[in-house]
């Protein structure tokens, strides 16, 4: 076999790819579900934390900063493994799926809270004062005056961070989550041919490609016009 043929045989082996397409498709669907759960719960928690922090309670702010710094500092894989192998000792036996979801959602919440909070801080004090001076409540001001401006600034770093962390779903392969990478690796072992990995890469591209494009569009759409 020539070098080129060898490459085709190893990485683009259609026979092997066809054989493992169903399992990788299943992994794809599972990854989509996992990603959707992480993004929805992570961003919702981030917003909630940023709002709580804006209340100005010292105790609350301290607790939030502690949470944020902890989850930004520790590698997500360590946390996933810790949950998966540690919690059973405490009587809980969460699945690898749940462990991966919870950890990545918390990590996303930590990073995203900082981004949203920075956005809130960047809104001039005058906006608060103007709104409050017309009789608007704290929460109406936050929700309708401050957050729209804060999120507009935050949206680009937020989408980037969301994509980066959601790609961490691949870490689930370590704790028996049958997501794309796990299925592809299994395929490689069984067939002794790396082509399933190529298929896996394509599956990631199909999943995250549109997200990256969406991020680009959002960035352009929300470019500050002042």
């Amino acid at each position: 076999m020539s070098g080129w043929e060898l490459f085709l045989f190893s990485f683009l082996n259609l026979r092997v790819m066809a054989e493992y397409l169903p399992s990788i498709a299943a992994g794809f669907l599972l990854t989509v579900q996992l990603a959707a759960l992480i993004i929805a719960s992570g961003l919702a928690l981030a917003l909630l934390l940023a709002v709580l922090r804006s209340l100005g309670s010292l105790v609350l702010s301290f607790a939030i900063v502690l949470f944020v710094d902890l989850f930004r500092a520790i590698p997500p894989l360590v946390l996933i493994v810790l949950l998966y192998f540690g919690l059973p000792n405490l009587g809980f036996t969460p699945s690898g799926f749940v462990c991966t979801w919870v950890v990545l959602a918390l990590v996303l919440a930590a990073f995203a809270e900082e981004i949203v909070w920075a956005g809130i801080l960047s809104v001039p004090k005058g906006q608060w004062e103007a709104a409050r001076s017309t009789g608007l409540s704290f929460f109406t001001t936050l929700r309708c005056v401050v957050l729209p401006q804060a999120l507009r600034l935050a949206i680009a770093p937020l989408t980037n961070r969301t994509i980066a962390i959601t790609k961490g779903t691949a870490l689930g392969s370590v704790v028996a989550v049958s997501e794309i990478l796990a299925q592809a690796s299994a395929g490689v072992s069984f067939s002794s041919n790396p082509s399933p990995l190529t298929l896996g890469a394509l599956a990631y591209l199909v999943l995250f490609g549109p997200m990256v494009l969406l991020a680009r569009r959002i960035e352009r759409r929300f470019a500050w016009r002042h």
Partner: protein
Amino acid sequence: MLSRPIIEARAIHKSFGPLKVLDGVDLVVAERELVFIIGPSGSGKSTLLRCLNRLEEPTSGHIVGDGIDVLARRTDINALRRRIGMVFQSFNLYPHMTALGNVAFALRRVVGLRRRDAEERARSALALVGLADKADAYPAQLSGGQQQRVAIARAVALEPRVMLFDEPTSALDPELVGSVLRVMRQLREGGMTMVVVSHEMEFARAAADRVLFMDGGRVIEQGPLDCLFGAPKSDRLRAFLRSLERH
């Protein structure tokens, strides 16, 4: 001035940490009166205005606004603020809302008007400040003078009992100052009670009932403009007036 006071502030003290910013200020503003406040930078003019609607919490003192105890705990501050309009040096329009949206927002959320009614009232407030044709413009598309007039419309639309102006023209290019002062004159002629912190002495000459000179957190002198400027009693006011002439 026989009409009852709209604002009655007594012995207002305000400190930021060790810094005493207001040191026993009394301010009584009668209905339909225009009180003009002058004083050097840092003398506490803005802080005094901001105490009147509790954007700043006085350290001690009493404020009655439109018959309501402003500083009492049980006072619904949001209901009160609606009746005390405020205009800021830096306009502070909401950049993500149109001029109409800026004016209509509190009408919907605070007064509780329905969208159509709020927008109708917002449009007449914009017409009042000469910006009927800019209803759909965003703040970024307006000049500073136009933005400040939208800000005035935003406050006036709530039909306040008194309007507070904190250096409303200081951030404007000189050629835009006139348009804002004209709107203020017009409000004045409509009988609006006003407290104005400003350096626009022409405006004071034309519209002020009373001028109040502040320095170091106290009211040093007050009275009709001619008395104050014609025969200043204190050295501090004399020094301040000299510093004005130099500009």
